[in-house]
Structure formats: C-alpha cells, structure tokens
C-alpha cells in the first residue's frame, strides 16, 4: 500500500441504517422513558457535572437513537447521578435510571 500522506477520512455522518433495534428495545424494556424525550435540553442546562465536563443526557439519548452508542457512553461517564435533571424534565423522565440503563445496556461487558 502506498502512503500518499493523506487518505480516506472517517465520516461523521449519522447512518441510521446502523441502528441496533434489538439493543434499543432492550433498553426501552428496562426504561421506556427513553422514547419520550423531546430534546428540550433542560437536563443539560441544569447538569451539575455539565459545569465541568462535556455531558448531556439529551445528546446521549440522541446518540443512542442515532446509532452512536459509544458517544453516548462517553457523555454519560461524567454523570454524578445528582438528579437535578429528573427534577426539571418536563416529561417526567426517570433520568437517573435512564442514565444507568443506557450505560448498563450499551457498555461492553
């Protein structure tokens, strides 16, 4: 193989064809609230850890639905489970359990 000093760049495009439906259904079975997020961002706005680190439950849910679970896990690593997000969520999502369930479902065990 020839090294040209440049090469193919991995795409940042979301490819929904890669979405793992079974895994998602597994998550939705333990925490159905994952379905009802409407991406308002309240959780991210109040996040205790978000002040110091890049973390966003809203984004993580989005990443899960966008077939990018690794990104979601990376975002949720900083969570301290303080629960502020659950207090502000307009849809009443059990955010703490959702966070734990995402990590639990998508972490490679």
């Amino acid at each position, binding site marked *: *193989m*020839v*090294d*040209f*000093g*440049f*090469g*193919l*760049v991995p*795409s940042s495009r979301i490819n929904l064809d890669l979405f793992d439906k079974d895994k998602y259904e597994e998550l939705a079975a333990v925490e159905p609230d994952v379905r009802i997020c409407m991406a308002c961002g309240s959780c991210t706005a109040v996040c205790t850890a978000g002040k110091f680190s890049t973390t966003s439950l809203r984004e993580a849910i989005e990443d899960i639905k966008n077939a990018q679970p690794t990104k979601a896990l990376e975002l949720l690593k900083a969570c301290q489970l303080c629960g502020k997000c659950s207090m502000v969520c307009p849809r009443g999502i059990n955010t703490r359990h959702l966070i734990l369930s995402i990590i639990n479902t998508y972490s490679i065990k």
Partner: protein
Amino acid sequence: MIYEGKQKIWSEYQKEIPDDHYFYVRSCIRQSFFPASEATFLRITREALGKDIFETEHHTTCGGIAYHSDTIPQETVMTIIARQFALMAKYGYENYVCSCITSFGLYCETMETWREFPELEARIRENLWKTCRLEFAKPKFLIHASDLIYKYRNLIAAQAVRKLVNVHTGEPLKVVEHIGCHYSKMFPSKGVGGAEYPYVLVGMVEAWGGEIVDYPERRHCCGFGFRQYFIKGNRGYSVSNTHKKFESMEPFKPDLIITNCPGCPYFLDRWQYVIAESTGKTYGPDGHGIPALTYEEVAGLVMGYDPWDLGLQTHQVGVEPLLDKMGVEYDPTRKYLGKNGKNLGEPLPCACLK
C-alpha cells in the same frame, strides 16, 4: 425510477442555445489534464458540424480558481471576466462559449450580481476602461461547451460510426453522468435539465445509444472542492468525497463515467488510483477501474476518432477494456507515442489498479 417523471422535469428546464457564431474560451486546467478534449471539441464543431467557432490567444483565466480559493477580491475577478466579454464583443461575437464549468458558474454568478447590483456593474465598467481601455459588453448567450455538444448530439449521432453499446452483448453501455457542481446547482435555469436531474449529458448518452445509471450519490461533488484539494492536509476530504461516490455507484456496475467539468474527470480518475493503492479497492471488474471520460472524448469515440488522438492515454484508469467493449480498434504500441511519433514516456505499473 419513473422515467416519465424525469422527462416532465427536463421539459421545464430548456435553455436557448444559438445556432452558430461562437466565441470560445478554453479552460486553464483541462489543457493539461486532458489536453485533447478541447481540440476534439473544435474538431467536431468546426470540421464535422461546420460551425463558426472563434478563438483568441488574448483571453486569460477567468480567475475562478483563485476566486474559489479565496485569494482574489471579487471586483478583480469581475474585471477579468469583463475583459473576456469585451474581447468577445471586440471580435464581433455575442455567443460566449466556455470550456470550463468553474468559469461558466462564475460567469453566471457575475452576470446575476451585475443584474442585482447595477452600481457594481458600473464600477466594473470603469475598472475595465481604466485597466484595459476596453468597452464593457455582456454576452447575449452564455453557453457551456457541453450545451453545444448537447444541442448537436443528434447530428453527431447521425455521423457516428459506433454507438455506446457493448458490441459483444449488444447491450447498451451503462454510463454514469457527472455534472460539474457549478453547471446548474447555483442557477438551475441556466443548465439543460435543471439542477436535480440535469439532462445535458443524459441527452448525449441517450442519443449515442448508452444507458444512464442514476445512483444515490449522483448529486455529490467529485471531491475537487478547490481548497480541499489544493492543501495537502485537506486532501483526505477530497478523496473521501470521491470514495463516497464510487461506493454508491458500485452496485450499478457502470462501464463508463462521462463528465462535463475540468476537475471532475480528473478527480474521478486519479482518486481511483489513490483509493486502489491505499486501500486496495477497485471499482471496475477484475481490478480495473471505471474510465472517467470527458464528453468530448466520448463524442470523439462515437465519431470514430483514434483513441490515442483523443488523449485517452492520459487517463490513470486504463481505457482498453472500454475500447474493447465498444469494438474500437486501437494500436497498443502507439499508446504512449506523441503526435510526432516520439515516446512520451510510460507510467510505472500500479500495485492494485490494473
């Protein structure tokens, strides 16, 4: 795919193309990338069709590459363009035909800008007089050279010695058409067939017996992207663009790519080599690539011109399998001989791309 649906759209994007008396300006880069293409254009239009095509050695670059690389002010580029137009008027022409898509887009853009901002036009008029002592003029018709071949596609088909057909199977060749982004994406009404389903090359292929392949990434850029290519650090993006197109067209197994832009055939051709040599992936059968030709080269082939006279040896992807399919007779020993019979020098063999 519903063909009638496309026809309906094509019928809404028809462009008036004058019959004769054209002022022709060449492309900066095509002359070095595919040097015989423009010569073939002149040969077909002048010799085969008997049209009046005027050329002058006084014309320059349109400034497009510099413009799209953000290295030249807009007023400067507009003044260059005004000078081109002034030359046309000076030699008594009003039908401006350009060989380059970048130029074509830039001319369209400039003329639209002048229309929207007459004060800018006035300033350019002044600039032109101050710098070149030339009278400002605007073409009556602005035409891309492929528009002209499109217009005469049926006349060419009438004179053709062969069709875009696989002589062994009798099947029409599967052709991918790639339109330069600046042809109609900016101003859909300026191109034949509009922006979503351009007809300019489709019309040629259909007239010459080929079959068009419509693949998902048809609209995608070839990967040139000016700054993406010029800066080595960005070339990964350029080649990735091309890669995306090839991945998309691969299942359709095209025999040929036809293009109407200076950069596109170059990148669709050369990046096949880079992809092959850096990843091992080739897109034609048996380790071959997919030949990416200009429309003049394709026209020349159906007209029965010698492939080496058409400059097909300057392509990275070997054209021999295509020539075999079309039943074109060629002398392999002459491939790398110049017009004067002197050896041009042969490229080293590739590891992956045949």
